[in-house]
């Protein structure tokens, strides 16, 4: 086939020409660092990737590099700002110029980096982890465990070769209180991609001896690197929070707390601080015990002293008390006895008075009766003096009246006044008709009698 062809170089030259014409420089690009290595000359070569947010599948990939001179500057700037080393897995916002070289192909030259983007991304990730832990209800679980008064048996999760671990153990063993600490290292990789899994594995080992240990200490073995991403990871945090023993962290970080610190029972800055904390706690306990022992000693002595005083006080007070009681009773009795003759003689005196009053009453009432009777008798006497005389006077008057009446009726008195009485045959003549002519009649006068014959009889007409 005699088809016309161009050489690869020609092709690459053409691509280079197209790309140069496209002016793809000083573009801000978001990407994830897939791989990062620095060569002998200090140039940094990266593999930038982009993954689908949901499927996590690779959707773009490109090589990139930072010139050594630029890299030193950018790295320092990035690390001092974010507190993170520029490393695999970080999402970065970088200023790139697209470069195409005939030999090396396409490459992105990184000229600048914006650390705030990475920080935002890291913070978001941390938030996501925390939210997930919270949703699962394990966020506070380790914090809720009670830290024993003395943490004597310690499981250490650390890198055994790290200087931090050695210092930590040294510090514990030479504590000023002479407390005996028991510790066992459960080694783990404390940085890099494998750290997460390694730490989780160490926790699982400790879990086998969970009844033995008092607490777990998670310390980072030191070193210059500040790659702490693993301590923000979900699995590490998940293991810490769910662990049945209290976890104390001493990871050593300068910036924000890591998620591991947040879920740990106690978070301290450094392994040294953790050792000091443990020693201090044991020391406090010793002090506490000694203090209590002293307090008890004082209280026991005080108590006994107090009771002794009380008993002696009772012993001292009840004797006078009894005597006072007896005295009181005696006084009361004597008072009663003293009142007795007074009461008795008062009573007798009252009765005497009463009897004396009887005499007066007798005198008064008896005299009254006799006086009354005397008056009655006097009255009788007066009536007696008056009444018979009165009666007699009445009778005298009656006599005089009777006498008068008789005197008035005496015929002698009539004769004396000139009246006369005529008799016929010795019989008083009261009617003219009683006599006839020729009858002899006698008429009596006061000083004698006349005798004669009736010459005529004149009867008066009827009245």
């Amino acid at each position: 086939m005699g088809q016309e062809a161009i050489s690869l170089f020609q092709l690459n030259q053409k691509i280079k020409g197209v790309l140069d014409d496209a002016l793809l420089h000083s573009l801000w690009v978001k990407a994830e660092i897939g791989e990062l290595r620095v060569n002998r000359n200090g140039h940094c070569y990266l593999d930038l990737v982009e993954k689908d947010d949901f499927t996590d599948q690779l959707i773009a990939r490109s090589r990139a590099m930072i010139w050594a001179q630029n890299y030193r500057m950018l790295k320092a700037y990035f690390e001092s700002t974010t507190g993170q080393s520029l490393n695999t897995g970080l999402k970065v916002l970088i200023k790139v110029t697209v470069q195409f070289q005939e030999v090396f192909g396409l490459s992105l030259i990184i000229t600048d980096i914006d650390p705030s983007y990475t920080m935002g991304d890291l913070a978001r990730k941390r938030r996501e982890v925390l939210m997930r832990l919270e949703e699962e209800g394990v966020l506070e679980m380790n914090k809720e465990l009670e830290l024993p008064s003395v943490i004597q048996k310690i499981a250490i999760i650390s890198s055994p070769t790290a200087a931090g671990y050695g210092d930590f153990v040294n510090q514990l063993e030479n504590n000023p209180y002479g407390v005996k600490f028991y510790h066992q290292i459960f080694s783990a990789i404390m940085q890099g991609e494998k750290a997460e899994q390694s730490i989780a594995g160490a926790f699982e080992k400790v879990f086998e001896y969970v009844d033995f240990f008092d607490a777990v200490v998670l310390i980072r073995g030191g070193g210059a690197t500040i790659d702490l991403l693993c301590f923000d990871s979900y699995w590490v945090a998940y293991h810490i929070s769910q662990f049945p023993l209290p976890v104390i962290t001493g990871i050593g970080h300068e910036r924000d707390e890591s998620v591991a610190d947040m879920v740990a029972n106690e978070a301290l800055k450094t392994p040294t601080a953790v050792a000091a904390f443990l020693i201090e706690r044991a020391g406090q306990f010793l002090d506490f015990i000694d203090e209590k022992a002293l307090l008890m000693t004082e209280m026991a002595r005080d108590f006994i002293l107090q009771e002794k005083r009380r008993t002696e006080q009772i012993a001292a007070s009840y004797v006078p008390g009894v005597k006072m009681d007896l005295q009181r009773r005696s006084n009361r009795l004597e008072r009663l006895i003293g009142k007795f003759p007074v009461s008795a003689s008062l009573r007798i005196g009252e009765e005497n008075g009463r009897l004396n009053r009887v005499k007066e009453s007798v005198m008064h009432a008896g005299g009254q009766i006799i006086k009354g009777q005397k008056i009655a008798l006097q009255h009788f006497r007066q009536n007696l003096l008056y009444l018979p005389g009165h009666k007699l006077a009445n009778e005298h008057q009656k006599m005089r009246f009777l006498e008068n009446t008789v005197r008035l009726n005496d015929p002698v008195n009539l004769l004396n006044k000139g009246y006369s009485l005529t008799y016929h045959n010795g019989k008083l003549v009261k009617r003219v008709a009683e006599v006839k002519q020729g009858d002899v009649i006698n008429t009596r006068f006061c000083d004698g009698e006349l005798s004669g014959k009736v010459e005529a009889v004149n009867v008066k007409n009827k009245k």
Partner: protein
Amino acid sequence: MAQKKQTYNQAIAEIEEILDKMENEELDVDELSDKVKRVSELVRFCRTKLKNTEEEVEKVLKEMEE
């Protein structure tokens, strides 16, 4: 009639009887002066009795006052 036994009251009764008759003119003039005499006698008797009684009473009262 035994005068001793005659009481003042009987005497007064007799006097009053006689006076009654006199007033009712039941008495004859013939009886009249007899009766007048009787009354006179009775009155005297009464007076004497009264006097005696009076004296006796006086005496008793005198004694009482002593």
